[in-house]
């Protein structure tokens, strides 16, 4: 392998026969290029889909209510449905084992003021688990805790941008905010990956909100994280069961989607998973097709090259070349060309992908297309092995032709 003289022979043969070297190199480079682009684009698609769901926990479930659209048990349609602590407790008691995180949500919009600065912000009244469901990252202070709820404390956790709006660079933790005329103490500041809007929200204890604003036990939504030990099918079934139970409990027609529905990430995940599965199946099909085409291409070219060189091999053998040295020469040349060409195709492919970058994100849902080095290296190895086999078989045959037959070839 590291016989310098043999490499010299190979370089000379490649160099003096540029056309045929370029030809075989081009086949490989092109196959790898297509392969790279293909995988890159699919990974871009997959990035887009992953991104769409990264904000909330993957296992989240929302129970939402609105108005009935179907009369049921003598009740008119058009009735507004209201969730209360009772449903919340029912869900958490009944399905405790299937639930990892649980929280209620009450949506409010308040004018929040600090000294002479004020703004309207969305305020959510929640339970402590909300932090995990929304993937809220508290970077100063703490999130809401059980004691806040028990004491109905007037504490508030604000987003990074609320803090910037009202305090600028000055410290905010421990300061008191005027929320619609009532004073809340800032106990935490958080950041969130979900974008700007997610960082302009303030969180207060659900119990505090129920006491101060209406003095009732109403809640707007129930937000759950199902037990991650459930598989997708079990999770979907759980969501459906929850939906049925709650409709029954609130005297809602079993098919009234508008009155009460459970939005289950498991279903979305399942769909996305299926979609990605199909996509990858197609890619593997097309990708291996490309590779096989490349392999067949190299094989054909190698057969052609070796045929063309049969006479040369005959001469070399007459001069004392062993068959093994001829085989080694051809195979090494083949590997060298496939490796260099594969690398070129790969570089060109990744370069094109980097040019594409995020420019196709809006129109084609392709975000940050790229290929993992493992896949590409794997593909190149496949091609090298193909080059090896493609070179080996015909070279072996040619090397064992009687020299006299090889010499008379033309």
């Amino acid at each position, binding site marked *: 392998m590291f016989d310098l*003289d043999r490499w010299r022979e190979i370089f000379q043969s490649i160099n003096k026969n540029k056309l045929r070297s370029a030809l075989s190199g081009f086949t490989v480079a092109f196959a790898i290029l297509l392969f790279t682009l293909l995988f890159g684009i699919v990974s871009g698609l997959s990035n887009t889909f992953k991104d769409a769901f990264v904000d909330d926990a993957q296992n989240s479930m929302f129970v939402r209510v609105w108005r009935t659209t179907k009369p049921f048990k003598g009740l008119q349609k058009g009735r507004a449905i209201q969730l209360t602590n009772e449903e919340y407790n029912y869900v958490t008691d009944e399905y405790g084992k299937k639930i990892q995180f649980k929280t209620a949500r009450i949506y409010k919009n308040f004018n929040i003021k600090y000294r002479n600065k004020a703004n309207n912000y969305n305020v959510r009244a929640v339970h402590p688990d909300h932090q995990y469901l929304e993937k809220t990252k508290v970077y100063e202070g703490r999130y809401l805790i059980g004691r806040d709820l028990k004491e109905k404390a007037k504490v508030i956790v604000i987003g990074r941008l609320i803090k910037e709006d009202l305090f600028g660079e000055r410290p905010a933790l421990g300061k008191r905010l005027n929320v619609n005329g009532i004073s809340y103490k800032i106990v935490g500041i958080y950041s969130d990956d979900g974008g700007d809007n997610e960082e302009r929200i303030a969180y207060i204890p659900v119990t505090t909100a129920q006491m101060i604003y209406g003095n009732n036990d109403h809640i707007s939504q129930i937000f759950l994280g199902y037990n991650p030990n459930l598989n997708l099918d079990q999770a979907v079934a759980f969501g459906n069961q929850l939906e049925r139970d709650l409709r029954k409990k609130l005297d809602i027609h079993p098919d009234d989607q508008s009155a009460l529905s459970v939005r289950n990430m498991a279903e979305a995940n399942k769909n996305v998973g299926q979609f990605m599965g199909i996509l990858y199946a197609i890619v593997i099909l097309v990708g291996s097709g490309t590779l096989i085409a490349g392999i067949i291409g190299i094989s054909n070219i190698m057969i052609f090259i070796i045929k063309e060189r049969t006479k040369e091999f005959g001469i070399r053998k007459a001069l*004392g070349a062993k068959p093994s040295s001829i085989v080694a020469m051809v195979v090494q040349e083949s590997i060298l060309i496939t490796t260099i060409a594969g690398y070129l195709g790969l570089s060109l492919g990744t370069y094109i992908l980097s040019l594409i970058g995020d420019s196709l994100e809006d129109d084609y849902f392709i975000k940050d297309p790229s290929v993992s080095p493992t896949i590409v290296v794997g593909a190149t190895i496949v091609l090298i092995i193909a080059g090896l086999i493609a070179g080996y078989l015909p070279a072996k045959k040619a090397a064992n032709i009687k020299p*006299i037959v090889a010499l008379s070839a033309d």
Partner: protein
Amino acid sequence: MIKIENLHKSYPIGKDSLHVLKGLDLHIKEGEFVSIMGSSGSGKSTLLNIVGLLDTHDEGKYYLNGQLIKDLNEKKAAILRNKFLGFVFQSFNLISYKTALENVALPLYYKGMGRKERLKIALEYLEKVGLKDWAEHLPNELSGGQKQRVAIARALVTKPKVVLADEPTGALDSTTTDSVMDLLKEINDEGMTVFVITHEEEVAAQTKRIVRLRDGVIISDKLTQQAKAV
């Protein structure tokens, strides 16, 4: 050096087979300069190729340098060729993308000699055939006579025991034929066994022994004036 007993060779042609060599006996001693003559198709090349281990025989015995040639695989044949034999072909058979010097050096590469040394030796042999100034030229930049001299230098570079030449002057005019024959005589004078096929009586007359072949059998085997002159 070369000893052949009752040598037979047939080529399969479809279902039939063509019996080309029909029981040859031939003994060539070291240092001889032998020519083979005979009409086209009489089996001259077939004989030379068997002697040169480029082809195999069907029946009979062939000893090269005292070694019985039997069931050789390509690898062993390659080693023997490299060690004992040098070839000169009618159509030169130079490698087109290699310079004259590299062509001459190639057998030494297969001997396992280092690059520097083999290029040095190759250059000496090119000088010997009068082509030192053409060392860096590619074959297609050389005349027929020059190509054949390069081929002879290549055949000699490993100092083989036997040089086999199949119509080495067949593609050359009379002047270049003479220069090639002078070279062959010279190396024979140095003690190498030379075995040539030729159609030309004048060429054969310059060797020391003429073997005539007809339809696969030897019909005459005589020493020439040259041999008697020595």
